[in-house]
């Protein structure tokens, strides 16, 4: 039997994953690392996890950097480490992103290396370690010279480098996720990210243009899909040294379709919004978009600057269309879990956001 240590368990994907893991008797104990076990969300999560749980679950107080001390008394029992914690703010200062995503991961891997019963370490990453590459991105690939759209991507790329280095000594697999936007069927959103922020700005009539082309893929997944694929890969098909793309891949919706669906849903769901006659943002080439963004900065208008900066954090990514190849993930997930209809997911999430006034669920 196993003791599983999870970082990032209170995030949107982590919470769903823990809920699934405690429901199956494959571990003796699940410990979730948290910096603030008394916080309201953690308390609520713990209560929800324990309802019907078949496995004891609890919080361990500490950070990634203090993990060695925080989990010292359970180190001898740990068999699985699932590292989901990350700083996902695109616009955060690079040093903060590096501290969380690189130094934090290094500390988790170092701790894992001192667990005598360790059998598996799963590290969650992002498909956007591909940065500004274009075309097809394959799962084994990591190194490139294309640069990155933001400091978050750069920090995760560096994180993967140290993770790959650790594969020489540890049983480590990397699960690269694309943007998790909400739950299947309900569209429920528990954590807002750049996807929701951008659509909220479109809804508010604050986005005149978006860089990219109509056929630019926008790779999004549901939190459910991310959780159930990680659960299966870690619990049933763990393979040390593997890297998997857990994303929409070739079924990713296209930017033009996504914008048109968004405008249609906004018109349908909010009759009052129709009065504003807000136009769909124009798809702009990179040079035009950058000229507009520069003009906004020169204007000094704080509202326009805030809107432009929200788009700026991922703007360059939209001008570098790419498709994440999922061959290796598909090979091990075939027949186990179906990839959701990404366009339907987007529509459900947009409806949820409009009806909940762009607030995430507790």
């Amino acid at each position, binding site marked *: 039997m196993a003791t599983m240590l999870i970082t990032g368990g209170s995030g949107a994907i982590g919470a769903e994953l823990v809920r699934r893991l405690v429901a199956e008797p494959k571990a003796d104990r699940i410990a979730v690392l948290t910096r603030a076990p008394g916080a309201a969300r953690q308390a609520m999560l713990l209560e929800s996890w324990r309802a019907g749980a078949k496995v004891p679950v609890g919080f361990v107080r500490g950070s990634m950097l203090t993990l060695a001390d925080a989990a010292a008394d359970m180190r001898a029992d740990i068999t699985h480490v699932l590292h989901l914690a990350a700083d996902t703010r695109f616009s955060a200062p690079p040093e903060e992103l590096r501290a969380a995503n690189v130094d934090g991961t290094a500390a988790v891997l170092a701790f894992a290396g001192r667990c005598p019963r360790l059998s598996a370490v799963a590290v969650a990453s992002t498909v956007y370690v591909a940065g500004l590459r274009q075309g097809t991105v394959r799962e084994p690939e990591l190194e490139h010279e294309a640069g990155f759209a933001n400091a978050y991507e750069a920090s995760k790329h560096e994180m993967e480098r140290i993770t790959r280095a650790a594969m020489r000594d540890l049983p480590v697999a990397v699960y690269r996720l694309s943007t998790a936007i909400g739950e299947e069927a309900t569209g429920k959103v528990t954590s807002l990210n750049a996807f929701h922020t951008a659509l909220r700005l479109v809804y*508010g*009539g*604050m*986005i*005149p*243009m978006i860089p990219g082309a109509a056929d630019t893929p926008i790779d999004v997944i549901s939190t459910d899909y991310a959780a159930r694929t990680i659960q299966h890969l870690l619990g049933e098909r763990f393979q040390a040294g593997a890297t998997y793309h857990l994303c929409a891949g070739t079924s990713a919706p296209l930017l033009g379709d996504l914008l048109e669906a968004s405008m249609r849903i906004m018109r349908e769901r909010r009759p009052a919004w129709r*009065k*504003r*006659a*807000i*136009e*769909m*943002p*124009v798809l*702009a*080439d990179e*040079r*035009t978009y950058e*000229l*507009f963004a520069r*003009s906004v900065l*020169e*204007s*000094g*208008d704080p*509202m*326009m600057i805030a*809107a432009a900066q929200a788009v700026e954090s991922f703007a360059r990514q939209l001008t570098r269309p790419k498709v994440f190849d999922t061959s290796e993930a598909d090979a091990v997930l075939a027949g186990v879990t179906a990839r959701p209809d990404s366009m339907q997911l987007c529509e459900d999430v947009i409806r949820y956001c409009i009806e909940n006034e762009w607030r995430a669920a507790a």
Partner: protein
Amino acid sequence: MNTTSSTNPATATVAAAGIGIAELAYYLPPDRRSLAELHRDGLLSGSVDTLASFGFQYAHLANGETHLDMAVHAARDVLDRSAIDPAEIGLLLYATALTSSATMAANRAAERGSVLRLDTVAECFQYPASTLQAELELTRAAVAGVDQQGCASLMAAMRLGRAMLVAEPELGAVLCVSADAFPSNEPRDVVYNIVSDGACAVLLRSAARNRILACGHVTKGSYWDAAALEPEVIAAYFPTARNLILSTLARAGLELDDIALVIPHNVSRRSWEILCGLLKLPQDRVYMDNIARVGHTVAADNILNLRDAIDEGRVAAGDKLLLFTFGFGLNWGCMVVEH
């Protein structure tokens, strides 16, 4: 509201009528000041550097001249150029952007510490359009004012004038005049552009040149309080502008590549550089020379630019031209013309 004209079968009717801009003229007051001078005189609220980077250098100020004085200048110029008998003009449309320009009291503002102040109800009935008709001796002309469309008012007047000529050919000719003088001592920068005073006049009639092929107009009334919604206004501007230009071209049966020259408003060179990027339109096909040397005349940008483009030999017979403007309200106006 999004309206266009010249769809089939109306296209055939209008094309057959051959209504065009038979003559055009503008007037700018002689007081021309640089950005530095405007700043020195307390007539800028924003940064000189930012305005310069957006393409502005100078503005014209109507010191002592009223909007009506400028309107008379421009209208007389058109009448002289065309040599038309004023009695041939069946309709005078007086277009204004500023509410103050639709009154006779526009120049009182500075003295009274307000932008516009009328003292008596009787002043509400004193119309500059009527005064203009009398001044120009347009004895046969019916008179109407066109306003509440910001800097798109003149284009709206031209569209109405053309429609009237199609509907009532006996009107013979329509004179569209537009003039605006900014309230004195008010900052000249509005939403990152520099406002000049000025006037223009256009004679519409059955004409061999400057035939109007299609018109388009979009009003988005939810943005009526433009000053309070400035970021939203700027965000609305670009997609609406692009869409209106493309839809008006489509109604003329043309594509952007068919347009020899775009005759723009002068609401910043930067805005045109961005709009050109969105339209994939080479910037050298937009006549932007007057943005720096004149700034944005509320009343007259398109006609000012068309007049100068013609006089500078930038337009050849048969060239297809696209006139585009934008006004508070919000209003977007577009017109395709064959020179």
